[in-house]
């Protein structure tokens, strides 16, 4: 019985910590910081307890546990709880040292804890009202963190764009909630999902899926609303890490949470495939040109959020959940460790020039990647997977081929070739093992990927072609990137095709009057 309350208890310690944070004036609020870390640890323990409860069974399946108390305990919410509380603890602990000496460290910690608490309420929400409120609260609290240095003009510019985007997202979610109530006559998410899985809901459900998709796109900084995300470096580093604790990826969570509803609207999913796929390629190409480490990481986040959206569009919800977890951990670490960029750049130059693979080496690398992919895939039951999952697996081939190509370059020593091959094998095994685990973990909660129709096939072919093309272009990169013909393209690309500049112009981002 107690386990049903865990989703609700999770955020409670953080709310307490927030009170202490706001009450602490001046630099070095030792007590408030100690309370904050203790609360973060306690929240993490509660999440672990929830996980234990879920594993122990308790006879709790997704449908049964959505209690009247609005807490929802299933493998999706538990995974998200674990993720959010873990990164939350890391960020809270990091900030306690990092912000040492800041006059407003107490309030910073307060907003940090409030944001984390709001995200926990969001990911464990059992009804639409709680979901909606937590969704809005998250972005309002985050707004205060983005404006931690309110006098910074660039911070105002980024926060303003974020604010506009977030309010549009709130409206989209609000309309979605209204439509869901209209379609299913309840605010209970469990009931909605159950009904939706039976194919019920009619046009309001399809419209709701569209609004949910829109909210997700706006939340997860999909093109062209990504502008603010690449500018959050105006807030202290831990805020960038915090984004990955269920804030920026809340869009993906929303789609996963309402997977059953989303499946009712294949057209909406198709849009998500196209927009997500475009954002993924766009972001990862822009990232290549970015010379500042945090900016580059932010563009990478844009790209990864696109990939997550693409996975949702392909109805590969378990994989999208896996992606949220994997990416958040990686990116939170990368932001917090971004101060090491000077060392990393220097270290990368020491072992001598990079061996550049020619077209033949790239070709061999793609074949070798396929050779690795097939047996490892078969080992993990490739034949039972949906065509969508197999198509997504091609991304792995493309990626692994890039690594192999570096080892296959003529100038590369044998030992390097061997080593990259081992990495490639390890990557492939890790990839399939994690996918299998994610699918197994959510088997009772998330719907199966439906068999693809003509539209889905067309989209898969399109995605494969475009990703494959970019992969080949990337592998052959040094051979063409410095050609004078590419110089102009590079300029436009490095500016993100000016989507952000246009956004700035529309909202008066460069206004001197507001700045002064």
């Amino acid at each position: 019985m107690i386990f049903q309350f865990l989703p609700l208890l999770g955020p409670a310690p953080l709310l307490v910590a927030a009170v202490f944070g706001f009450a602490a004036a001046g630099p070095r609020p030792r007590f408030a910081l100690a309370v904050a870390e203790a609360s973060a640890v306690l929240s993490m323990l509660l999440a672990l307890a929830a996980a234990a409860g879920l594993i122990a069974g308790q006879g709790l399946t997704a449908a049964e546990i959505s209690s009247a108390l609005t807490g929802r305990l299933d493998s999706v919410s538990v995974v998200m709880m674990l993720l959010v509380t873990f990164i939350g603890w890391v960020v809270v602990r990091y900030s306690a040292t990092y912000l040492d000496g800041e006059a407003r460290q107490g309030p910073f910690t307060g907003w940090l804890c409030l944001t984390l608490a709001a995200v926990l309420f969001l990911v464990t929400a059992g009804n639409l009202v709680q979901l909606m409120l937590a969704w809005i609260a998250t972005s309002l609290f985050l707004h205060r963190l983005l404006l931690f240095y309110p006098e910074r003009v660039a911070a105002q510019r980024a926060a303003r764009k974020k604010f506009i985007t977030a309010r549009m997202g709130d409206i989209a979610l609000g309309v979605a909630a209204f439509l869901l109530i209209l379609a299913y006559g309840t605010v209970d998410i469990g009931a909605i999902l159950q009904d939706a899985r039976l194919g019920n809901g009619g046009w309001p459900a399809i419209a709701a899926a569209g609004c949910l998709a829109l909210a997700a796109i706006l939340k997860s900084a999909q093109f062209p609303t990504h502008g603010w995300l690449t500018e959050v470096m105006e807030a202290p580093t831990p805020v960038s890490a915090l984004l990955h604790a269920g804030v920026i990826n809340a869009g993906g969570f929303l789609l996963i949470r309402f997977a059953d509803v989303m499946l009712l609207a294949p057209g909406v999913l198709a849009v998500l495939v196209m927009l997500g796929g475009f954002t993924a390629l766009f972001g990862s190409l822009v990232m290549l040109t970015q010379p500042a480490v945090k900016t580059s990481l932010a563009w990478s986040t844009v790209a990864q959020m696109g990939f997550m959206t693409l996975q949702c569009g392909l109805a590969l919800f378990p994989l999208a959940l896996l992606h949220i977890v994997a990416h958040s951990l990686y990116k939170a670490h990368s932001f917090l460790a971004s101060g090491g960029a000077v060392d990393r750049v220097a270290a990368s130059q020491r072992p001598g020039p990079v061996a550049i693979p020619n077209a033949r080496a790239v070709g061999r690398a793609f074949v070798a990647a396929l050779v690795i992919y097939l047996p490892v895939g078969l080992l993990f039951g490739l034949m039972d997977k949906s065509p969508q999952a197999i198509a997504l697996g091609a991304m792995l081939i493309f990626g692994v081929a890039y690594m192999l190509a570096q080892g296959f370059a003529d100038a590369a020593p044998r030992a390097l070739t061997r080593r990259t091959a081992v990495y490639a094998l390890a990557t492939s095994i890790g990839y399939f093992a994690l996918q299998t685990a994610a699918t197994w973990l959510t088997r009772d909660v998330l719907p199966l990927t439906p068999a693809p129709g003509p539209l889905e096939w067309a989209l898969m072919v399109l995605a494969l072609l475009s990703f494959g093309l970019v992969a080949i272009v990337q592998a052959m990169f040094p051979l063409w990137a410095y050609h004078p013909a590419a110089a102009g393209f590079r300029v436009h690309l490095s500016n993100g095709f000016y989507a952000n500049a246009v956004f700035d112009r529309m909202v008066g981002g460069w206004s001197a009057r507001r700045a002064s």
Partner: protein
Amino acid sequence: MSVSQSVTSANLAAIADRAARQVPPVWPLASSVAVNPFLGQTGEDLATAGARLARVAASPVTMPRHWFQTKIAAGDITDDDLAAAWARAPLSLRPANLASLKAAAMMESPAPDAVPTVADLASAASGTDWVGLIADRFGGWAAGYFDEGQALWAAPRDRGAYAAWRAVATHDLTPEIAGLSGFSRHVSDAPETALAAIDRAVARLGLTEAMMDTYFHQLLMSLGGWSQYGRYKLWQAELAGSTDATITDMLAIRLIWEEALFDHHAPQISDGWVKACLRHAAPLVATPDQVVNAILQEASERAAQRGLAATLIAARPDISQTRPALQAVFCIDVRSEVFRRALESLHPQIQTLGFAGFFGLTTAHRRFASDVTELRLPVLLNPGLHSHTGGADMALSDQSARVLARAKRAWGRFKLAAVSSFAFVEATGPVYVGKLFADTLGLHGAAARHDDPAPALDPTPNLATRTKVAETVLRAMSLTRNFARLVVIAGHGSTVVNNPHASGLQCGACGGYSGEVNARLLAQLLNDRAVQDGLRSRGIEIPGDTHFLAGLHDTATDGVTLFPQDDPATSHAADIEQARQWFLTAGALTRAERALRLPRASHAAGVSRRGRDWAETRPEWALAGCSAFIAAPRARTSGKDLAGRAFLHDYDWTQDAGFGVLELILTAPVVVASWINLQYYGSTVSPQVFGGGNKLLHNVVGGIGVFEGNGGLLRAGLPWQSVHDGERLAHEPLRLSVCVEAPQQAITDILARHPAVRALFDNGWLYLFTLDGAGTMSARYEGDLEWSDVRAAPDTQMDMPYRIAV
């Protein structure tokens, strides 16, 4: 605007070059060293530099008045200090008397007011933040152009800065989207060369020659650290005997912006622009307020000098002349002072020496399994030696280390590249749970860093050269007799993680690298029997049982790593073990002393963990607080608590025939120390202009520097966290007081021969004192090669002529 006076292009180039030299250079962060931010202003005094920097950058050059007011009220700054400083100020500009000076100190001086640029005027007139947009666009281009390897797709850099920028700016649509229509066309139509572009802009903006000096300086300052990086390129080129146009290219780029904005907004801003031009044309004279600021600054320094004199005069323990139980040579770095004091306190027979941490070996070094040549020497010099780690006998392990590093790099590229980054995340993201745990709890050991094999000179110089080098070094550190059985040569470095400014914590004399390579090379050189034989014939008798041992003092942990494996000496095992114990104890004492200054370090054990904490912005205070430089035998300062604020250089003038060593000290270590001291000074009094910004917002760019936030200007100088602990300054901005135990006349002769060094002292960027044989301050250098007795009461009635033509 009337037609501008014609300026010949040779003249224009000279003016542009002059402006470039007003800007200090900034080294890339991988190997950064402190630079005097007032390097371009050393020819003038503080008040005049204040007038110049106010005009071009709205930069203060002293603390706000209330800072001094507090010190006056507390009695730290006395009336005598004020009177003495006042007496040296220009008669026409200083307050009438002491009372009016003190009254002026009660009022805040007006904020420095820069002349507006065209961009400033256009921003005000149009309501669009052109100043910010220029910084953003220029930073966007420069970050790519100077990138040393952050972006996988680097920007083309096969041509000069001006041409490269034009290629970018003719494509970049951002300015036009923001409202500056036709900007790409404007850039496309600009002249082919930077000088021609400057020429055209000068005509368009109606500039006369008199206006250009401070206007050009201002435009370069408006580019922040970027123009300083351009100045660095020029510095490096000139050191190598060539030249570089990057910084004048930057001036041309900035002028093209001014021109474009002027074309767009001429009707609204031309009145303002005429006024601005007239202000630039006005001669540069300090205002009475700026003079008061400079007087107060000097008074605060005189107050500190009284304290230093009192410390030096205190009774000192007797140093016996018997053979020392241990000799340890450290860098002159102020951090060594604390450690040396602690070490000497352990045993009366422990002797320490201070010498610049590159130990006289100007080596261009390649580390193990590396192709990169690192200049481990003061940046004022060219390398005279070459060395590398891992000789032919280690070719195999060198090769496998390289393969490992290249595989790691391939993995890094896999992580970042388009498409493969998705596979990377899906396959290995969860591994980061472990990394987050380990980094959050600081579980990484920091010890594995100093296990590189011994470095070796390559090519090995012949015996005569080696002997000559050894003799020069030993004489320069005044270590020519009474050698102990064990002599430790201790370089220093700092083991810190996740810190973009880590190289600033390393040894400045080693070019921003840690000092173990130079120490290990010197120990090997001195252990060479053939070299010792050669030294004997030159009058330096090294006993047969003396062994030289290299070490590395980690200033973050105060641990000392020894390198006995370089020259195995079983005969000295006991000595080495004893030394190790002493170093351990001295480290603990040093940490305890440092813990008092560091925030959140209530106990010494907490200190040694700071460097490993990835969230720590203040792993150590580095050279914060530095304010004195003492060149004298250690006996004059031993046992005296100099609080980690003094550079200590061993120097015994009685052994220095011809004063060649003195000349070296005054022209090299003293200058380097002044760069460090003035970097702290500038970053403290003018953090906006000369400071590195807020570490919480740092965004490493190109592997060479940091942005504060998203982008825009490169931030050079020390981060705010490095000079301030959140509640008070960790560095008190005082210009360095140099104390030398040597005959006055010898010092005067050297200054007369080195006008650039003399300018530093004459213009008050450094103070100079002589010490007598008892270590007491005896005379103060008054400028113009004149000295005064330091104990004489300042004569406030006498009007000293203002020393510098303004």
